């Protein structure tokens, strides 16, 4: 008999609360004051580096970030003891102060290192930098001296509906602002430091429980949250002042993200490992290319773009069916090998269909260059426009189109997931034999996942061909498939936000950190190994996936169940 109900050991009583040191709180306040004072002083002797941190009483960008950190610390300290104790009943201020203190110290140390390496040695650090560092360290020390307290359950926290929606809006605005600011930084050190700062703030928000509250709010106002996210994405080009550099990166992120979402249906929902997925993106791209007005296009038929999109997606889905029908009878590692082989076959075929071996369809290794910009109705995607005085270049036009595409992909993903078909996929992942014995069409559902995933990738591919203005076989190497899979694993299989986050990280970082490119693969390898060790379910975990990865964890199962019940009651 296998009794699944094992007694859960009683949660060990919290260690006797440390007696509060009376010095802790004033120490924290002193730290905040020092941090602020330091930020207004000069940090660096050299005015050429890190966007000029050398002027007294005129804080530069990184110094303003420090000030933001100081203000947050102050709020948390006041929530601990002082006028905002009501907030302190909900938020874990102590943990937040500890995280902020440690994070800001790390940030300051990195800034000093940056100043030291960019100019000649630490001699160029002015007193302001050291004062701020001491301030950050004091905050950290004060955080460790402050006692942990009993908190109220965050799922009961309620604010008036309007204010909850405002919270979402403020948060989204902060995301937009942070993205625009970080992307605007030109030199690598500033960018890295900014990322570190954002990571510190985000961690602190998670540790205090603010994010738990936000996620509860998000569940209560799902539509508002989705809408707000799209509005932010929509507004992004307006923050770039017609700069093409960042918009080009953003477009790559969107294409990569849309493709990853398609793969997420295959991997995250149906649980099939596909290592040749980039071929479906390629099939869409090549279809759009040969049907375009390029001088090198090999097919005479020039239908309107909407038709091209459908044809490209259909070609891609057909390829999915062709590869899926015979191979989906194998599973696991074998399927991965077969799909890997398929991806390579696609690349070689595209490289060989040059008229020497077989028909001239793709111009072989040269690919099809000179694909003209899209023309839908009277609107040419190559033209620049200006809206309310803000320049929107060629890439912005494609950006909006890609935004619609990714919205569609997310819609398909979410609705399939939450339907009879989605339940079938979960059942197959859980126990294929039992699913079959319950009448679930196992083979049909697997094929469907393959075809839908390929269809969506094909759609993305048709736009990519026009955006890149050229296709060639080397764009569709195995490593791209591996990165798509890495984005899903990193972000969280089966989730929407996670995969988009993973795609953004994997596309954005290499583009911004060009000087780092030789170590790119090494870093990704390390990152994935660490993820597998410490958080196998990904950055944003789907609750069910989390359970699947932690089969033994009864407490987690109970916790998930309680949360579901809480959500059920709220609705």
């Amino acid at each position, binding site marked *: *008999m*296998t*009794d*699944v*109900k094992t007694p859960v050991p009683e949660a060990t009583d919290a260690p006797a609360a440390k007696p509060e040191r009376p010095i802790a709180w004033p120490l924290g306040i002193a730290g905040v004051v020092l941090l602020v004072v330091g930020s207004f002083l000069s940090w660096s002797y050299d005015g050429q580096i890190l966007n000029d941190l050398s002027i007294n009483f005129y804080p530069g960008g990184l110094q303003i970030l420090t000030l933001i950190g100081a203000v947050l610390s102050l709020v948390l300290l006041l929530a601990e003891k002082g006028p905002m104790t009501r907030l302190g009943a909900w938020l874990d201020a102590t943990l937040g102060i500890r995280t902020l203190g440690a994070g800001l110290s790390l940030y300051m140390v990195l800034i000093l290192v940056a100043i030291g390496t960019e100019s000649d040695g630490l001699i160029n650090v002015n007193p302001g930098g050291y004062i701020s560092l001491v301030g950050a360290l004091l905050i950290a020390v004060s955080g460790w001296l402050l006692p942990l307290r009993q908190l109220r359950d965050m799922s009961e926290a309620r604010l008036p509906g309007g204010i909850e929606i405002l919270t979402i809006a403020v948060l989204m605005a902060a995301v937009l602002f942070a993205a625009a600011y970080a992307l605007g930084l030109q030199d690598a050190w500033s960018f890295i430091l900014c990322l570190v700062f954002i990571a510190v703030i985000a961690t602190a928000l998670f540790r205090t429980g603010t994010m738990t509250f936000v996620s509860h709010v998000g569940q209560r106002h799902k539509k508002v949250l989705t809408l707000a996210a799209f509005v932010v994405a929509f507004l992004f080009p307006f923050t770039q002042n017609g700069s093409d550099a960042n918009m080009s990166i953003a477009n790559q992120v969107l294409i990569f993200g849309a493709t990853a979402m398609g793969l997420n249906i295959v991997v995250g929902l149906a649980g099939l490992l596909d290592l040749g997925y980039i071929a479906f993106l390629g099939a869409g791209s090549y279809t759009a290319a040969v049907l375009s007005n390029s001088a090198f296009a090999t097919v005479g038929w020039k239908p309107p773009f909407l038709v091209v999109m459908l044809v490209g997606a259909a070609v891609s889905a057909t390829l999915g069916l062709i590869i899926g029908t015979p191979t989906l009878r194998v599973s696991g590692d074998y399927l991965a090998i077969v799909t890997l082989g398929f991806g390579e076959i696609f690349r070689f075929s595209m490289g060989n269909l040059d008229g020497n071996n077989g028909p001239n369809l793709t111009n072989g290794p040269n690919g099809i260059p000179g694909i003209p910009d899209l023309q839908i109705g009277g609107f040419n995607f190559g033209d620049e426009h200006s809206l309310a005085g803000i320049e929107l270049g060629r890439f912005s036009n494609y950006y909006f189109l890609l935004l619609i595409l990714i919205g569609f992909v997310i*819609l*398909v993903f979410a*609705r*399939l997931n939450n*339907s*009879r*078909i*989605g*339940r*079938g996929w*979960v*059942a197959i992942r*859980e*126990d294929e*034999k*039992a*699913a*079959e*014995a*319950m*009448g*679930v*069409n*196992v083979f049909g559902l697997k094929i*469907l996942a393959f075809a*839908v995933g390929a269809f969506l990738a094909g759609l993305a591919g048709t736009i990519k061909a026009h955006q890149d203005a050229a296709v060639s076989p080397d764009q569709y190497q195995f490593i791209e498939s591996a990165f798509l899979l890495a984005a899903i694993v990193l972000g969280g299989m089966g989730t929407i936000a996670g995969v988009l986050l993973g795609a953004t990280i994997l596309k954005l970082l290499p583009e911004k950190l060009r000087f780092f490119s030789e170590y790119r693969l090494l870093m990704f390898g390390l990152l994935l190994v660490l993820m597998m060790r410490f958080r196998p379910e990904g950055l944003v975990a789907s609750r*069910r996936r989390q*359970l*699947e990865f932690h089969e033994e964890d*009864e407490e987690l*199962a*109970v916790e*998930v*169940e309680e949360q*579901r*019940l809480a959500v*059920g009651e709220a609705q």
Partner: protein
Amino acid sequence: MTVTESRPEATRPIGEPVLEASGVTMRFGGLLAVNDVNLTVREGEIVGLIGPNGAGKTTFFNCLTGLYKPTSGQVRFAGVPRKAPKAPKVKKGESLDLEAVPVQELAALTPLPPKPRAVVRAGMARTFQNIRLFANMTALENVMVGRYCRTSAGALTSVLRGPKFRREEEATRARAQELLDFVGLGKSTEHLARNMPYGDQRRLEIARALATDPKLILLDEPTAGMNPQETRQAMDLIFKIRDSGLSVVVIEHDMRFIFNLCDRVLCLVQGQALIEGTPDEVQSDPRVIEAYIGTGEDDDEDAPQDAVPDSTPGEEKP
């Protein structure tokens, strides 16, 4: 000596054959797991399948449900026609039980293809010896998966979410809830299957099987590891299922349970049908006793102490 207690009245009309397995043989290499077994199950009948461990009971189930393709023999089933007619509207006065498992007209016996999906579609559902629930789904979701083969929303409908999709989804949910109430799990709807107590998991598996609208349900050791009270509840549930017009085949080792429950019992030994008959016939047959506890004559060492009459535990007492 008999263990049969006051049996619930068996005067209900036993109907036409639902399942007719003839000459089912399953061979794994040199091992003859099931050898030429015949079984007929009629409408509204509870048939027990007993036999010592390794007798081939579960293998026989797997042959019936299409998980194995029998080496030879045929399984014929009077299933639900492919296009099931709409269940008639239930009138107010009728009890919940009848409402929960609507009875459909029987079709003629037709051979079953050895594919699990086709078998389920035809109207035969099963549970597993070792529970095979979808552990990380809630109770309701588990039962909703059972509805899969009776619903039809495809990919396009699911994405477009027309009124038909929403109606079907609503109906699936309502029916799943109804079945959970039927097996007595109405309060555990949102619990994860893996967090549920053992007995509830067994019942949830039955609810999931019932969700496929079967004519015949095969239960593989539904009371294994249960205490006497839970066993009694399981028995009541099986009677309830039978009373709503389904046929039931049960594999079980608990003889008291089997002989109280079943209309007919088939005893398998080493892959062969030893005897088939009413509980009284089977439990008084010396060969069955021999198969379970040995004869005590030709193999002295093997005859266990508790073969002595009156000191045997109920389970092995013929």
